[in-house]
């Protein structure tokens, strides 16, 4: 697709693996300048080596749960590429498994700090720069746990719901400034994140992880897992001029799995 993303500058948080990595790759193919961040330098170096044919990639080690790290991410981006046009809030460690009274308080507060406030930190700095040109895109990667609460996703679900709420409020406020804010919820995608989920589903149902996977797939109308590239394509579309009237919406990329109105 010709998405006219050349000369655009995109930050993809958690871009060293999974959906973030696939998104960075497509953005690079579309000739955007791309900045990826993640906590581990090793993961970043690994990603960089896989994307070595592109010279418009910058990697910055950054934990979105830490104010100073996020400030540095934006500082490096502006220093190298001069602006921020697109922010893909994607980095997020969320844990599956523990029930209500098994989650300790620090785990809760860390989860809120890392995903919800991590997204807030990045969004504030991105919008500050986008306002200078009255143009920009923020795409928040959420997850079906936001709309479909699950007793084994006790920290992740509420935080995703909160990110959805924030997405709509930001879209409402910044639409007049040409800044469009959307959410995208991937269904089950074959990344490390989802393997973690299956382990718990298997333990709960006392079945093997393979059986848990087959059961899961049975519940997906297209009868397979999604691939990170399929999510990435939708993210890049939302970041492009083709999506110029889409804001405040949540796009589901889930093979039809979520069937509620």
């Amino acid at each position, binding site marked *: 697709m010709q998405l006219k993303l050349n000369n655009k500058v995109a930050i993809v948080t958690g871009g060293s693996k999974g959906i973030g990595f696939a998104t960075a790759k497509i953005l690079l193919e579309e000739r955007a300048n791309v900045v990826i961040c993640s906590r581990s330098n090793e993961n970043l170096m690994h990603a960089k080596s896989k994307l070595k044919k592109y010279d418009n990639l910058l990697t910055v080690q950054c934990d979105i749960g830490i104010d100073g790290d996020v400030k540095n991410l934006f500082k490096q981006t502006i220093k190298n590429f001069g602006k921020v046009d697109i922010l893909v809030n994607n980095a997020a460690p969320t844990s599956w498994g523990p029930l209500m009274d098994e989650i300790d308080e620090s785990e809760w507060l860390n989860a809120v*700090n890392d995903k*919800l*406030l991590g997204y*807030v930190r990045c969004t504030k700095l991105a919008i500050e720069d986008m306002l200078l040109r009255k143009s920009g895109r923020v795409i928040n990667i959420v997850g079906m746990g936001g709309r479909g*609460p699950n007793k084994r996703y006790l920290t992740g679900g509420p935080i995703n719901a909160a990110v*959805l709420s924030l997405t709509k409020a930001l879209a409402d*406020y910044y639409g007049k400034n040409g800044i469009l804010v959307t959410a995208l919820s991937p269904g089950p995608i074959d990344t490390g994140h989802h393997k973690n989920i299956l382990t718990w589903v298997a333990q709960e149902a006392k079945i093997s992880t393979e059986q848990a996977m087959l059961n899961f797939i049975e519940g997906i109308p297209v009868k397979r897992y999604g691939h990170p590239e399929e999510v990435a394509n939708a993210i890049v579309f939302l970041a492009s001029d083709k999506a110029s009237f889409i804001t405040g919406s949540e796009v589901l990329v889930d093979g039809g799995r979520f069937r509620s109105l």
Partner: protein
Amino acid sequence: MVVDFDHYSKKVEFMRKNFLVVSDSNFFVDALKKYFLPNDFNFAYCITAQDIDLNSMPKFDNKLMAYCNPMRHEHVQSVTKQIIDMHESIDGLIIFLNSEGGEYFSTSPDQWLDYWNYKVLGSIRFINQISKHMKKNKKGKIINILNLEARFPNLINAVGNSADMGLMNLTKAMAAELAPLNINCNSISLGDFEFTKFNNKMNDIPINRQGDSSDLMSLIDYLLTGNSSYIVGENINLDGGFSRIL
């Protein structure tokens, strides 16, 4: 509208039942008092605030009222223990904590976390403690009261709106965990009431008036009685028809 409290007092379902109301709204607690007190059941309430940092643990007075900071695990534990010592069991828990969390622009990440700690984790602390006893008795009703505004979020109250949506999600997730133990967990999203901040205009409300205590009490009454036992993890918009959303 005049509340027909006699009607409620005739209800046998409530007899000798014990309820705990946790709220930082005196207005809300007063409304509930009017509803609970004429009946033959026990009603205790806990007024909460973020800045309550009592050196001693919360203590119920003879009006069955205690002050407590839900950010402090030991406070919540102490309140629960006193209720159980008094009544041996607890049948219903109603939580209504301030939905005004702060605006997006000036709230720092630390303040944002503090509010989550108060509202969302505070509710979890109470539900965790109280549901332990409900589990033993294999029955109980939990109601989280939220602000309908959270379903139409804005940046002016981004912190509160997002926490309310988190709590709505959590109510449903917890309901799934607790329902097999005969504990129903639901939430109510309040529209324009005397004790809510609601920025939408009256002419948007089809019923053409503000909600009053009796509107809320009827719904709470319904959710607390056995008649509603198949309602699990539901969020009910109590808004005079305002929301009009699927």
